[in-house]
């Protein structure tokens, strides 16, 4: 696989760091998660598929020594802490890169390693607020609405961090050297949204730019929004181009006389209401029959389960089934020659791989036993959990 042989040490964190680690694991890297023995919050196991887990006491000098040894043999390190924390542990980039100059040291934070907010606590919604993008998201008359934690935690966070790691790995094949990646979710989310900044003054996209939900792509226009169906499901309409808009009108059983013109902005609320009434007259599957295969850009809004069942996604094997029988997305994109995993590897139990990982970096069984005895590391086998 693409990242076979690449060793990643991931210091356990909440969501962004783990997602970056998961992407790397999905494409073949050996990702070892360092969980802390004295962790106040139990690690949510949601993004750990295919990783291995070791538990260390990072407050103990001996534990730091173990971490050091793991990092000396690693290609990539991902850490999610506030700036300065790794330095306090004696595991800062200066320290680790000195002993392992090919190490790619990725620092995954909300606000970045510098700047006035860098030591402050925050979450996706705060980081997205700092980009300016959140101010453009929401319906008319309402408040800015963050799209869950997709844009800062995942897109601008974990995904951007993974991309930085691959860039650095690629660069390292030329230079032989690693480097530090300062992955800030504010920076990452902004960068992903570059087009919004670039087009903010385009009158066709943002005719009423100061106001939420009154523009072309932000639910202002009647032909770029979702509509409720008779059975309380939804259809998504994205009929921007005139030829698609025409197909939309036809499919709704309307004629040009029934609705105001597509670009008649003042009448958009009126057109919306007309569309809404028509959509409510049929069920989602009836609308699917009307629009399937038609270039109207009208498609069903599928639920998480529904998406996994949908024939298109099934043909594409967009979803994998995990050991609980539930669906989860398959790694994207598809590299045809060297794809990512095509099945769901299990989540590790916290501390499941402590011993095997220590052995891999040269610890003897008696050294390991000593470390366990002194609570420098903790080992959990699957057996002991039963």
């Amino acid at each position: 696989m693409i990242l076979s042989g690449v060793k990643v040490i991931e210091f356990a964190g909440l969501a962004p760091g783990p997602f970056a680690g998961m992407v790397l694991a999905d494409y073949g890297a050996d990702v070892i998660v360092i969980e802390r023995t004295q962790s106040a919050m139990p690690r949510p196991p949601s993004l750990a598929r295919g990783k291995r887990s070791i538990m260390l006491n990072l407050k103990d000098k001996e534990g730091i020594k173990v971490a050091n040894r793991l990092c000396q043999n690693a290609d990539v390190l991902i850490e999610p802490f506030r700036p300065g924390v790794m330095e306090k542990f004696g595991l800062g980039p200066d320290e680790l890169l000195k002993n392992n100059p090919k190490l790619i040291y990725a620092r995954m934070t909300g606000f970045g390693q510098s700047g006035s907010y860098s030591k402050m606590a925050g979450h996706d919604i705060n980081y997205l607020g700092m980009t300016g993008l959140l101010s453009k998201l929401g319906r008319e008359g309402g408040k800015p609405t963050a799209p869950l934690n997709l844009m800062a935690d995942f897109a601008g966070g974990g995904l951007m961090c993974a991309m930085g790691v691959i860039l650095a790995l690629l660069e390292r094949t030329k230079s032989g050297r690693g480097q530090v990646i300062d992955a800030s979710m504010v920076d990452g989310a902004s960068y992903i949204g570059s087009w919004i900044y670039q087009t903010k003054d385009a009158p066709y996209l943002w005719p009423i730019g100061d106001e939420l939900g009154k523009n072309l792509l932000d639910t202002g226009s009647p032909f770029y929004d979702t509509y409720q169906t008779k059975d309380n499901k939804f259809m998504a309409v994205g009929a921007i181009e005139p030829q698609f808009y025409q197909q939309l009108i036809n499919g709704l059983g309307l004629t040009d006389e029934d609705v105001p013109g597509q670009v008649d902005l003042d009448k958009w609320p009126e057109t919306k209401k007309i569309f809404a009434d028509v959509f409510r007259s049929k069920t989602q599957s009836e609308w699917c029959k009307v629009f399937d295969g038609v270039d109207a850009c009208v498609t069903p809004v599928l639920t998480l389960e529904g998406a996994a069942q949908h024939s298109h996604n099934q043909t594409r094997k967009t979803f994998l089934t995990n050991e609980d029988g539930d669906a989860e997305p398959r790694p994207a994109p598809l590299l045809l020659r060297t794809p990512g995993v095509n099945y769901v590897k299990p989540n590790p139990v916290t501390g499941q791989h402590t011993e095997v990982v220590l052995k891999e970096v040269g610890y003897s069984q008696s050294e390991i036993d000593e470390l366990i005895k002194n609570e420098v590391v903790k080992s959990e086998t699957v057996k002991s959990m039963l």
Partner: protein
Amino acid sequence: MALTGIRVVEIAGLAPAPMAGMILSDFGANVIRIDRTKQTETVDRLARGKRSIAVDLKSKEGANVVKRLSSNSDVLIEPYRPGVMERLGLGPDILMKDNPALVYARLSGFGQSGPYKGVAGHDINYLATSGVLSTLGKYKENPIAPINLVADFAGGGTLCSLGVLMALFNRTKTGKGQIVDVSMTEGAAYVASWLWRSQNLQLCWPTKIRGRNLLDTGAPFYNTYETQDGKYMAVGAIEPQFYALLLKGLGLTEENMPGPQIDIRKWPEMQKLFSDVFAKKTQAEWIELFGDSDACVSPILTLEGAATDVHNEARGSFMRNENGSYEPRPAPLLSETPGITEVKSDPNIGEHTEEVLQEFGYSKDEIDHLIKNDVVEKL
């Protein structure tokens, strides 16, 4: 730079493919955008640092120009519906036979296969088909796509770049290129993997009703609030210790509250209480009051405000372009080989036609011939 020496042929498209091209360009690749002839305006707003050559793709000679470019390039990115490149005689079979080291990236909404392949759509449709759109939006309101960020840009352009980079990395070991099939539908789903994987976390998804959960505007302590001056604050105080600081900053105590933090039945009431308090001060006053406390309360900036905010300025998060407006600096920051730190200009259509052809070994006569026969156009 990280991608110095990498040559990318980007077939001009709307927004997702340009995003992929821009990322590669920002990190040092030489990106040549193939524009259509007979048009003066480009829709590409992510064009900084690219070069443009205008080619009549419908003609055989034009297709040959693209073949020649791609035979000496590392990456090709195409944004068309499945089958179009094949019809132009530029499918991966042909181009990769000629250049087996080529990374051939195909960026589409629904992917290169499946019943929806080739159906027209936009971000909102791909997001809908991924399942993700059903989770976004407020209680009792219709699902709302966050403009076109998640499918076009996160699951589309950015994931395309990631795929290209991974293929280039693999190529350093194997010498071989490959096809990268980027489906925005799948990309959006993958970026949102956590939604599927966390469904059994009670704390995050107490109700499974859109808009009534922890992170989807259900919780009062993970939400946005209007200030006295019509601006907004973002509140993300999930952890109990941060929540305590939030209450303190708002001048509230646990006793004032209708219920404990995680009593979801009291969430609507708590939201109203917070709304009332936030409405009493301006955004600037709230910023000052919360300072850099760990309450996870921060301002919601406008696009312009973000560029000039003191934190973002210190980080150089935004670059100024020649029009005086701001655009985000490439992320993430690589310490040794960062991306660009200043904005290179957008090319005009056909601005580099001659230069690019010369670079790829065309003689002056050959170039004149192509121009004369409208196979290519120059500015």
